[in-house]
């Protein structure tokens, strides 16, 4: 059962020699993993004529933190953005393959990317609160989706979201202050609260702590750890320590190809591929 979660590289053909190893990998220390939330099948991605992703197959389990690691330009952010169709907005971006979200292909005609993005929330590298009040930042999503029907319900959503993001105690007396007046770490938690407010099932995080100082980074990591209980989280990170600290699953990308994926502990302590070994031991990247 657990082995099904591993990357089936045989499909890509190129790396078929490693497939048996993946299947042989023991269940290991991974915690009991819930059902698969997102699975990518044969994803190819182009920006104009430049191919950014090559035949990526990856299964992402629910209520788990999955870290995407790899050197700059390896396609990990690109892959992240295929999961809520954020690449749609990029000119010249073209995608092939399937991304199944709860078994539904999100690139098929009847899936509305606008609604998809409410279910698959996203947090970006640079904190990007709207230049509105803290309250309005969090309330924006519920308002446009018509989730809260009364002022009281909206107040409640805002409070709960901020609490879940660990920001409530710091901002409860200044909800009307501008979101941009908060510190960088607070802004990033505000953005997470904003994503939570529309009750997403998945939260995609694109290097959420790379613009923050170590203390703020620590808070975000704690937060990610807490959020894992309720959400499927996919995080792109440059920091292997961070990947090791916050994630249960890790996928290593290199030059647009998924090299290896598995339980974080296994990938870090016992990588199957030489490239993974080289990267996590700091020989390149």
């Amino acid at each position: 059962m657990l082995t099904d979660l591993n990357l089936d590289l045989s499909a890509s053909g190129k790396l078929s020699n490693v497939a048996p190893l993946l299947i042989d990998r023991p269940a290991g220390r991974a915690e009991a993993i819930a059902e698969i939330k997102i699975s990518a099948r044969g994803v190819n991605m182009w920006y104009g004529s430049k191919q950014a992703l090559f035949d990526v197959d990856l299964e992402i389990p629910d209520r788990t933190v999955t870290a995407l690691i790899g050197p700059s330009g390896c396609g990990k952010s690109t892959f992240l953005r295929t999961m809520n169709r954020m690449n749609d907005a990029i000119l010249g971006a073209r995608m092939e393959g399937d991304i199944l979200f709860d078994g539904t292909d999100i690139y098929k005609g009847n899936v509305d990317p606008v609604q998809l993005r409410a279910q698959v929330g996203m947090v970006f590298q640079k904190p990007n609160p709207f230049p509105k009040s803290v309250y309005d930042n969090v309330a924006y999503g519920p308002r446009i989706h018509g989730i809260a029907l009364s002022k009281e319900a909206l107040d409640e959503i805002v409070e709960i979201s901020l609490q879940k993001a660990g920001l409530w105690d710091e901002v409860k007396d200044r909800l009307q202050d501008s979101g941009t007046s908060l510190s960088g770490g607070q802004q990033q938690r505000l953005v997470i609260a904003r994503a939570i407010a529309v009750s997403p099932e998945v939260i995609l995080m694109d290097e959420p702590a790379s613009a923050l100082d170590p203390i703020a980074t620590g808070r975000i990591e704690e937060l990610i750890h807490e959020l894992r209980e309720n959400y499927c989280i996919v995080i792109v990170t440059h920091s292997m320590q961070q990947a090791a600290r916050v994630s249960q699953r890790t996928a290593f990308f290199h030059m647009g190809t998924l090299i290896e994926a598995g339980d974080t502990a296994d990938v870090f302590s016992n990588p199957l591929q030489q490239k993974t070994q080289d990267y996590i031991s700091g020989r390149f990247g």
Partner: protein
Amino acid sequence: MTDRQSLDGMAAPNWNDPAIQGRLKRRHRGASLLRLGGIVAIAIALGLLALLLGSILSIGLKAFSQTVAEIDVPISTEYVDLENLEDSNWTRLAQDGVATLYPDDATGRRDQRYRNILSRGGLNAVRGAIEEQVIADPSLVGQSVRVSVQLSDPFDQFAKGVVRRDTPEDMRRITNDEIAMYDGLVAEGRISRVFNTWLFTNGDSRFPEMAGLAAGLRGSAMALMVCLIISFPIGIGTAIYLEEFAPKNWLTYMIEVNINNLAAVPSIVFGLLGLAVLLNFFGLPRSAPLVGGMVLALMTLPTIIIATRAALKAVPPSIREGAMGIGASPMQVVTHHVLPLAMPGILTGTIIGMAAALGETAPLLLIGMNMFSTDLPGSVFDQATALPTQIFMWFDSPELGFVSRTAAAIIVLLGFLLMMNATAIFIRSKLERKW
């Protein structure tokens, strides 16, 4: 300092070498020359600007005051209909009032020789003033009402020192007799100089002392309003589409290039377009602010589009991504986030475009907005004139009074432009958000 061996045997520079020192000195000299050149250029520009403003102000400020004569108009019961004041013979009362200024001639009638002192429109002004005052306060009947009447332009200029007493009589438009008469009025204390409110309340007139800018101001305001109503929504809509939604292909590229080209088309060409298409083909009314505004809108559109696109571009993509990332539709991303953030830039660009349109003359001349209009336009369909075309027409008039009035009108126009640009700067500095 001892010689230091550089890496890989590369020769270390000897900073004390006179050649190096000399080059350094030359580089510094180059920098200070460039600075000096810049300062000189700015000084020349400021000097020319000061010269221009100085000459306009020195000529134009005179027109902001007007010499008037105080007349005591007796409200004789003979001509007043107490039952129905409106039907009184106000004209006769005004004529008699004006006549009190002058000595009777041999036949006991008003001496026509002196009628040139007062403005030719003066009689109407007196008539209007007494009618208004007496109807407002009927107890004035039987007493006399004091009204002030503009002096005619030659005497206004004489009072202001533009026309001199020591100029030979045959070289000036006023005779020595008239000057003697005028001196008598001055001695009686009837001549004074007041602020020229007529400049802002009157329409155009053949007599400089009666001519005002009101018709031009109203016409310009109407044309600008039409221009704004047309160009603001279309310009913003175009910019949003091109910037946020349009695919990048050769068609949109061509559109972009042509919008930039439109911004450089001489304004008179837009005037010709207005004449050929709007007037001759669609048969819209000639000289109307409606057509003027439409032509100005064509000119303003590229400015607004370019400014709006720049403002939209300046909104950080992270805001768009953030909104998109929680499921805002493309329309919501634009209307809720991008547009409000770009608004200061859009408004600034629009106001600057409007300011350019306000000063535009050539296209208005071609569609006939240089008409002589004593009345203010009532609607955008009425014939009207505009501020810059009014300047153009006054500049062409031979009377001495129009020289200073032309300059005064330029001052008013510059005042409006200054106000609009100041508003733009204010908006830019106050509303602009930091993120």
